[in-house]
């Protein structure tokens, strides 16, 4: 079959992005911005082509799993991990999403980063962005295409690194461009939180190895039934820790909102569409293990459900356009995790795909809004300033920098309270954003409707408690998206900048249109009754069944969504928010809204309970235990001190000076006295010495003669 030849192309999905990043890294200094962006986009685009080819090969072939051996990696004793590529319907689906959405975001980033690096006055950093992005795509591909848990882990940590690098892309400032450690703190937080998840992953991996003697998916899954259930439960629970870290579930979700410090394309690609869904992928991939451990499934579903609701409530109280989307992402990830936890693997993966479309769309549109605002800000600065536009801008920037101590004086282009009425200034963006928002809210017939309903229908059947959690979360989702759209695009501009906002160029809007089309049509992937995705994934995940379309569930959720949108209209559009006015919800909910706004004080709680305590412990260990105890006390006092005491006091004073010294000094004194008198002989005149020699000769000869 010709398709087997296609399968051998699979390493290219990793090596094309690697080639892209190497080209940009080595030759990028001499290339123009457009070329750099084009190379990076082309590398990702070609990876997409490869993914499509693989999909076609699977589609036309049997659809069964193909393992493509590539290279030996670690081989110690009975541990044998090779870098093999696993091509099956699940991994190809992920590859398509990653490279497809990835390509669009790369193209978008050509335009976005062009403006961003100018706005932030660091043009050389443009190249670095695309190097990191390509690295991310490569790592993500390793993650989804690996044939063993260890290779998955390689990608898992690799994307964590890229996430770190890209969140901290503007590492020398905070989100508003003031010099600060804030962005790099966010990056660090993401990495370390992810590492906590990775710790769980590692423990799961070790347990797996010592029971299965292998980390390959094939070996593990085929042996799973022969292993005690307790072990499987242990493994799956620890995998869940990893999932919670990577997919931002309770209790490790705190890094994702902060991750919005990265440039918007990063938020869209890594922190919405692809990397954060790796946890969902992991659970779906480990389906054979999870189905053997019902308690683990329950735990996963509950974690997902609670996260979905919890994050949705926080999203209601946020003002930053990207923060709302970030909490929305956590919430939607909760939907997916809940779905795969309940065993509705197809529904989870389906939502993963559609969510990638519409959340990427939303983030990128939000980026477009922010860019528009920044442009408006720029114009305003020119009008106020004097001389040439560039110098005015620089002056303005310097003034901003010098004022960095005062938060309120720095304009925040991402704050929704500064926006309003933007649909007139940015019509294209508005329509695109609207599509994304409706899809997320789950309005028929957009993609979100189908995928969310499939999850809800499954939950309704399998896990009522989770069903209710998710339904309320869905209601809140529609509400906060409605709130956002009303606040940003309707009403009157609440800030001079919003009046001057400008529409984004084509390089930004065109990828958005493609994503919008996908957000509208994405539901077609797994329409009820046809179940394309279900039959696609059936080849990989054994025992998936097509969900029944439940009109009651669908009707209820649509109804709730519409109600929520209506409520948000009542609150935010009938009486549009005025400049400086407080959120109307605040009056309504009072302290509850404050709780949402302050994110339940989870960050503060973690800070107080874990971070500060760790810092305290570290300081204590370093200063008190290591410094004062081991170093100053044990070493200096006990060891060195005792030795000194022994040598100085006991031996030197006691034994030496009063006993041995007495003898030695007496002898020494005698010698000294004798020598003092004798040294007079040493007058230094060579002739006296010769005379002495002669005297000696005379005496000796005389002695010999007289003897």
């Amino acid at each position, binding site marked *: 079959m010709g398709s087997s030849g296609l399968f051998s192309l699979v390493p290219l999905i990793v090596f094309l992005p690697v080639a892209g990043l190497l080209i940009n890294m080595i030759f990028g200094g001499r290339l123009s911005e457009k070329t750099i962006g084009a190379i990076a986009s082309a590398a990702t685009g070609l990876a997409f082509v490869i993914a499509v080819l693989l999909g076609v090969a699977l589609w036309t072939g049997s659809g069964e799993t193909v393992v493509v051996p590539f290279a030996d990696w670690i081989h110690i004793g009975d541990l044998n991990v090779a870098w093999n590529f696993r091509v099956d319907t699940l991994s190809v689906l992920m590859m398509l999403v990653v490279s497809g959405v990835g390509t669009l975001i790369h193209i978008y980033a050509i335009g976005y980063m062009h403006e961003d690096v100018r706005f932030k006055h660091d043009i050389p950093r443009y190249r670095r962005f695309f190097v990191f992005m390509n690295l991310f795509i490569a790592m993500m591909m390793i993650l989804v295409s690996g044939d063993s848990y260890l290779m998955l882990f390689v990608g898992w940590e690799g994307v964590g690194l890229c996430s770190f690098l890209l969140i901290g892309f503007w590492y020398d400032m905070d989100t508003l461009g003031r010099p600060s450690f804030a962005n790099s703190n966010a990056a660090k937080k993401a990495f370390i939180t992810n590492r906590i998840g990775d710790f769980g992953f590692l423990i799961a991996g070790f347990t797996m190895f010592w029971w299965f003697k292998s980390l390959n998916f094939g070996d593990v899954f085929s042996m799973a039934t022969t292993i005690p259930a307790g072990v499987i439960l242990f493994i799956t629970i620890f995998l869940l820790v990893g999932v919670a870290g990577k997919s931002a579930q309770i209790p490790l979700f705190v890094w994702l909102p902060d991750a919005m410090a990265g440039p918007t394309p990063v938020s869209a690609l890594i922190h919405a569409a692809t990397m954060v869904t790796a946890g969902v992928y992991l659970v779906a991939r480990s389906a054979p293990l999870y189905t053997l451990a019902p308690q683990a499934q329950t735990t996963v579903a509950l974690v997902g459900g609670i996260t979905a609701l919890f994050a949705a409530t926080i999203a209601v109280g946020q003002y930053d356009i990207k923060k709302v989307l970030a909490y929305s992402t956590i919430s939607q990830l909760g939907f997916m995790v809940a779905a795969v936890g309940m065993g509705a693997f197809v529904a989870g993966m389906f939502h993963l795909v559609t969510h990638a479309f519409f959340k990427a769309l939303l983030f990128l549109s939000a980026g477009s809004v922010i860019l528009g605002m920044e442009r408006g800000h720029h114009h305003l600065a020119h009008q106020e300033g004097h001389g040439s536009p560039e110098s005015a801008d620089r002056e303005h920037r310097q003034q901003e920098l010098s004022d960095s101590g005062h938060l309120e004086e720095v304009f925040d282009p991402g704050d929704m309270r500064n926006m309003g009425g933007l649909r007139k200034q940015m019509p294209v963006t508005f329509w695109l954003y609207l599509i994304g928002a409706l899809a997320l809210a789950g309005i028929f017939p957009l993609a979100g409707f189908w995928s969310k309903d499939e999850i809800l229908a499954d939950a309704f059947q399998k896990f009522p408690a989770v069903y209710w959690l998710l339904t309320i979360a869905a209601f809140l989702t529609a509400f906060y998206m409605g709130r956002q759209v009303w606040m940003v695009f309707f009403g009157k501009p609440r800030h001079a900048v919003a009046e001057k906002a400008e529409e984004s160029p084509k390089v930004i809007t065109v990828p958005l249109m493609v994503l919008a089309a996908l957000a509208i049509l994405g539901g077609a992937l797994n329409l009820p009754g046809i179940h394309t995705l279900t039959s696609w994934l059936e080849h990989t995940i054994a025992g998936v069944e097509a969900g029944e379309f439940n009109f009651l569930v669908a009707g209820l959720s649509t109804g709730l969504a519409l109600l929520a949108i209506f409520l948000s209209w009542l609150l935010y559009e009938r009486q549009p928010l005025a400049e400086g006015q407080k959120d109307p919800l605040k009056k309504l909910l009072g302290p509850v809204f404050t709780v949402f706004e302050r994110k339940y004080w989870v960050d503060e709680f973690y800070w107080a309970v874990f971070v500060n305590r760790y810092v305290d412990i570290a300081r204590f260990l370093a200063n008190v235990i290591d410094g004062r105890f081991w170093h100053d006390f044990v070493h200096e006092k006990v060891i060195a001190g005792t030795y000194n005491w022994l040598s100085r006091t006991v031996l030197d004073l006691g034994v030496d000076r009063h006993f041995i010294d007495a003898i030695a000094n007496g002898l020494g004194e005698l010698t000294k006295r004798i020598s003092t008198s004798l040294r007079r002989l040493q007058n230094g005149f060579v002739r006296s010495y010769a005379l002495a020699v002669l005297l000696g000769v005379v005496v000796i*000869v005389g002695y010999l003669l007289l003897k």
Partner: protein
Amino acid sequence: MDYTLILFIILAAVAVASAAGLLVSRNTVYAALFLVLNFATVAVFYLLLGAPFIALAQVTIYAGAIMVLFLFVIMLLGADKLPKAKGLPWQRPLAIVLAAVLLVEAGFLLFQRLQLTANLASPEASINTTEALQSLAKTLFSQYLLPFEVTSVLLLVAMIGVIVLTKKEKGEQEA
């Protein structure tokens, strides 16, 4: 009176006289010349003793090379007379006494103790033949070959040592 005896007595007198001249002359150049004279006398003694090789070596090495070196240095330093210095007051009398005692001891040893009455073989017996010279060479280059070679090393070391010693260090002022 045999002419050799007369010769011996004259030579001995000259030798002792020149040594005494060395001892007392204030001028270094004169001292050196006295010594040359002494060396020459001793060379004649060697001839009398049937050692022509040593005699000639004495003339070339001592009277020629070494004494010329001495004279060079004397000329170089220009310090042919020393000013009076306080010196060591008891040095000179003590030295004279000790030297006298030594002389007495040696004379006592020579004439009282050892009783060396054996006469020397007649000079003609060996001077006339080259055999003595040949046997000297044979002994030197067979039995004493190693010491002979070592002397060459010794001379080399002395040469290098002298060069290093008298070489002016870099940057040192001309004295």
